[in-house]
């Protein structure tokens, strides 16, 4: 074998990357300690599937059904909040703990701080009133919620607010149903909405 080809063969031989993952995790921990992580996320396992939980320094900023939106939710966060989006499960420990309790039937309201960055204007107002007014096990119709926010004719706009809720479950848009009692739509699918209402023991005829 000539010297040239021996050298090139060696230079082209792939170097193992076995240490990269651990070094990566260590680097992200350091980066978080230095305040360089704007959004931390994890995917939590729940009885209704994987939930992507993302949080800023201010609080939980996005919850999404991982099987439906996948990484699109992270791309939206990168675009609208900050591209410094990093997987750091321990930053979501509190939210995950509350979710576990909720799904075990031991929690009726959430205490983690919420960051409303991803929604503003009328929609944010509607969602904030929903979170404050419609408690565990209760339901309200789109029209009733429209009345609560002082716009009784805005049932359709209320529906849009529910559809664009960036914090489902924590902001309980699953508690908003059709005025006739029909279950209505849900971003995570009607099956999940039914599961959540049953979990809460909401009286219903849907």
């Amino acid at each position: 074998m000539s010297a040239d080809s021996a050298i090139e063969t060696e230079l082209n031989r792939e170097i193992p990357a076995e240490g990269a993952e651990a070094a990566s995790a260590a680097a992200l921990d350091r980066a978080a300690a230095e305040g360089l992580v704007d959004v931390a996320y994890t995917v939590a396992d729940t009885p209704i599937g994987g939930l992507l939980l993302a949080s800023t320094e201010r609080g939980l900023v996005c919850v999404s059904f991982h099987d439906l939106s996948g990484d699109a939710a992270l791309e939206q966060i990168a675009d609208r909040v900050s591209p410094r989006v990093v997987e750091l499960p321990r930053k979501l420990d509190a939210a995950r703990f509350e979710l576990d309790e909720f799904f075990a039937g031991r929690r009726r309201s959430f205490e983690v701080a919420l960051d409303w960055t991803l929604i503003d204007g009328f929609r944010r107002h509607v969602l904030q009133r929903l979170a404050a007014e419609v408690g565990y096990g209760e339901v309200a119709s789109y029209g009733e919620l429209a009345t609560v926010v002082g716009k009784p004719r805005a049932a359709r706009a209320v529906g849009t607010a529910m559809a664009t809720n960036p914090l489902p479950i924590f902001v309980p848009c699953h508690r908003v149903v059709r005025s006739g009692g029909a279950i209505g739509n849900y971003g995570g699918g009607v099956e999940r909405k039914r599961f959540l209402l049953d979990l809460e023991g909401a009286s219903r005829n849907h």
Partner: protein
Amino acid sequence: MKPPLPWRPDLTFSAAAPFYTHMTLPPFQVALESHRDDIWRLLVASVGRDRADDCFQETIIAALRGYPDLAGDSNIRAWMLTIASRKAIDEHRATQRRPEPVGEGPESAFAPDLDGPGQIWERVRDLPGKQRSAVALRFVVDLDYADIAFALDCSPEAARRSVHEGLTKLRQDLPRELIADERR
């Protein structure tokens, strides 16, 4: 200011989403997972396995720090590898400033074994700075000369020359070692 890198569909995240009407940066986690292994390999080759860990962490932290200022259509891979390459250069400078242990000199007495995986990189690490960086960027992570030029802040011609000179030097050193091998 350096001119923006030519758009490289094979190297950018945007290739996965060609329908975007405006380019936005992917979540940092996505960029990190795409390029993490190559950054690691480049650093193992450039500074050795023992010192790669620190350089890698420095690279990731520097990348995260500068990430929001990056243009959406940037070549993220070349940008991250540039940071890694500069961290490796810093590490070599820091090592040179540290006093060398005198006497034994086991490293210099050791004739690298061409059959051992990765041994070639011990000899690359002894090359002059620019040649060392250029050879690593060319062979470990397959950057083209335009991207090597960007990383080393020189012209593509100079990048090509550095790779060539590095290879020549490696070749010149080889016969001596083959002779040394036969004497063993």
